[in-house]
């Protein structure tokens, strides 16, 4: 006996393999198939004949895959939040580079340390960039609504920037290891800065794994926001610990205040992620 649901499940398996990054298109094509079958049945066909005709009209999974493969990638550079954040990132990178080069030229730091500081700064700042895009996305989704295209472009932006963050952080840690070796004779000592670096490498790898496995704007936004908290802790935490700022010395209130504001902002944004898209509207 003909089982339509079984046929659709089999077709879905075949097309999903061919369109791995177009999960929404697979769902869309399935809806199309179901409607076509329904119409043909209404016109007097048997379910089996309707299925065969609908499949003929739709085209083979391979021909659909060929057409989808002709699509250009979703252009991240056209998404204006990404433009603003990445523009800011490059300005920060330029300023950081200028500062480090000036210290290098004046002999305050050596070449190895200069490149270590620069790569670590750019790697950590990249995670902040993802957080800024995530924060914008959360607010935009809550107040204005959200489209599949934005999920796609957010996913791609997060992916590219996280890859950059991961590579830069690993490079920075390796350079840092060599610099520490030149100073102390050992590569690694599990100090707070090193633990912070390892934590961020692991975090970036986890983000990439989760993005690879599943595409969802909520997951992408939560990962972006959590990255902000983590990079703050890993970047500035060791500085405050080693400088003693958290132990009641002068100026200790500022980091506590900043941390409080950041936690409150993150909790607010995380609660907005839980709401349906476009749920928050200003009423006149």
């Amino acid at each position, binding site marked *: 006996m003909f089982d339509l649901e079984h046929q659709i499940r089999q077709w879905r398996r075949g097309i999903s393999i061919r369109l791995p990054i*177009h999960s*929404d*298109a697979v*769902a*869309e*094509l399935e*809806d*199309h198939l*179901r*409607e*076509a079958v*329904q119409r043909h049945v209404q016109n007097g066909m048997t379910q089996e004949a309707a299925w065969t005709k609908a499949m003929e*009209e*739709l*085209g*083979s999974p391979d*021909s*659909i895959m060929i*057409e*989808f493969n*002709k*699509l*250009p990638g*979703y*252009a991240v550079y*056209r998404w204006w939040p990404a433009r603003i954040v990445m523009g800011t990132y490059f300005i920060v990178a330029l300023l950081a580079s200028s500062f480090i080069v000036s210290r290098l030229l004046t002999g305050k730091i050596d070449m190895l340390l200069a490149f270590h500081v620069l790569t670590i700064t750019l790697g950590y700042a990249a995670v902040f960039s993802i957080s800024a895009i995530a924060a914008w996305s959360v607010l935009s989704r809550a107040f204005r*609504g959200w*489209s*599949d*295209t934005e999920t796609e472009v957010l996913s791609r932006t997060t992916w590219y920037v996280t890859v950059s963050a991961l590579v830069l952080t690993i490079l920075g840690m390796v350079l840092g290891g060599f610099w520490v070796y030149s100073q102390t004779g050992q590569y690694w000592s599990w100090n707070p800065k090193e633990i912070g670096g390892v934590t961020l490498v692991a975090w970036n790898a986890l983000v990439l794994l989760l993005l690879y496995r599943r595409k969802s704007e909520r997951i992408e936004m939560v990962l972006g926001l959590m990255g902000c908290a983590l990079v703050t802790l890993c970047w500035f935490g060791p500085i405050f610990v080693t400088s003693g700022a958290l132990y009641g010395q002068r100026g200790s209130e500022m980091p506590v205040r900043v941390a409080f504001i950041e936690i409150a902002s993150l909790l607010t944004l995380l609660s907005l992620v839980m709401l349906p898209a476009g749920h928050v509207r200003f009423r006149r």
Partner: protein
Amino acid sequence: MHNASMELTKELMGASVAPLILAILKDGESYGYALIQRVRALSSGEIEWTDGMLYPVLHRLEEQQLIESYWKTAENGRKRKYYLMKDSGHKALAIQREQWRLVSQTLNQLWGDATCST
């Protein structure tokens, strides 16, 4: 519409898909299956798309920021992806319309076929 049964060339079919989609979406949101049925009805069945070929075009138009999409639950309870025109899509359609008009006028002058006038 012409009486003679004809099959559009692949090139002409490819060139006309985007303006046809934009022209239909100009009147309001729609979804893949409905777009195909509308074109089929308007052309009295002369324009026959392979259904699966429409979706990459829709995705491309979306990527080009000419249309946007969203999912909603249809009357039959199934989730369905709807497409609607963006402002840039209206502008693109106006340009395409002028281009097609120019081609059509030129061919009409060459062929002297009044029935093909737009």
